[in-house]
């Protein structure tokens, strides 16, 4: 089934057991992002200390792709330096825009490579990116503090 490329095990796992899906009481920045074409929404809190992403928590409604993507993101980026996190962010965005032409750097992206299949479904790229855009926005705000 072609669809299995999109809905990899890892994605469905994260969807069913989303990580860090509980907004923290404290944070350096909080953002709210929506995907107007489908109504998906996310709130995301971030704490950045000494250039390191200390915590990301979130809540939201959305499809498995958007939920899994942000769940994977938190696993991946918490504990990373902002510099490394942005490298991963850039790599992920590039992967999403690749129209299925690249596999993604697993060393860098780890579980997030499971989302590579999304890049073949243009209408779903925004789903996968929703949490990442929220992270970028929040991290910029947190650093500006």
């Amino acid at each position: 089934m072609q669809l299995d490329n999109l809905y990899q095990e890892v994605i469905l796992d994260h969807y069913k057991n989303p990580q860090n899906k509980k907004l923290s009481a404290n944070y350096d920045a909080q953002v709210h992002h929506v995907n107007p074409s489908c109504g998906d929404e996310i709130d995301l809190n971030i704490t950045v200390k000494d250039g390191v992403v200390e915590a990301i928590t979130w809540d939201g409604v959305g499809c498995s792709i958007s939920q899994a993507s942000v769940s994977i993101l938190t696993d991946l980026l918490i504990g990373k330096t902002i510099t490394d996190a942005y490298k991963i962010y850039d790599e992920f965005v590039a992967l999403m825009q690749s129209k299925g032409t690249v596999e993604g750097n697993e060393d860098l992206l780890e579980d997030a490579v499971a989302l590579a299949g999304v890049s073949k479904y243009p209408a779903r790229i925004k789903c996968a990116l929703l949490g990442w855009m929220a992270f970028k926005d929040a991290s910029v705000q947190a650093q500006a503090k």
Partner: protein
Amino acid sequence: MAFDAVAIRADFPIFDRKIRDGKRLVYLDSGATSQKPNVVIDAESNFYRLHNAAAHRGAHQLAEEATEAIESARQVVSEFIGGQEDEIVFTKSSTEALNLLAYSIGSAPKGNKFHLSAGDEIVVSEMEHHANLIPWQQLAARTGAVLKWFEVTPEGRLDLSDINSVITTKTKIVALTHQSNVLGTINLLDELVKRTHDVGAVFILDACQSVPHMPVNVVELDIDFLAFSGHKAVGPTGVGVLWGRSNLLAELPPFLFGGSMIESVTMTDATWAPAPRKFEPGVPNMAQIVGLGEAVKYLSKIGMPAIHNHEIELTKYAIANMAAIDSLRVVGPLDTNMRGGAVSFTLGEIHPHDLGQFLDDAGIAVRTGHHCAWPLTRKMGVPATTRASFYLYNTLDDIDQLCTSILAAQKYFG
């Protein structure tokens, strides 16, 4: 002759193609846009191949033919909805038609019937498509008018219990959808139109989801304006219709300004041609108008009552079979009384986007999301729905395939 959806499918070339590696196309997204029969596609092509020239300009043979082509389409369209020829304004879409009304009303000077003052009221409903909501929000904001609305009941019907306090003597405009693109609900207009006229307001009908699917007659409905889009009525993209009573079109100020809508022009001022020209500046979307004429002829030949009955049959079958699916909730009326063939639903915890993707993989095209009626989805208490919408080329088979795939999706994401 019995209605034969399979024979009708043969008129629509897109059904010859395959989806997702060889699967049959089950197109259940006609609420978003309909497919096009060969006669419509050919009408556009033939216009370009044989008659293309700027209509209403130039005295050469091609220009004459182009003019004749669009004017005879105007006649066909006017007959289709029971209006007069010069009451048909061609726009690019119903979105433009509704915005035209909002802008033109907004520019009506004092003394003009359409003039709005602060405190005047505009009435819509919670089941409006954004195209029949935001233009009125904006008009209200520009003029100081107050936007009011009819609520929607949990069953997905307009709540008319307060009709006299929603439509009041302050009301100037009532703009409502004929059929909800989300719920499938068809609104019974009699009481609404009567009350609107009793208070001296104008009644505007968003007929995007009704004109393509059932007989609609503007005189019988006694409404004042009506809008629909060609692309949802087996017609081309890029063409829509605004119908208005001729005396009202005569009074309404123009919207877009440019060539061919004028009577006279100086550097500082201009006066207008009579309607419909007043509302159609520039070289028209001629090939699309011609295609729409063909579309309407095609629908008329099959017969709008027959099309409507076919859709009711499909809807009845769909609702019955879907209701049998565990944790499936139909968002909208469950009976087919005053209800058309748009069936929105949720499926337990499975997000519509995921369900839609799964169905797509099986060759089934549905729409997911808020369907450009975000306040309505919110009101119905769902973040989004999956919508299957039916048209003349759909069959019971299509619905069987939908239900089978919904069950498979439950397993997949379960």
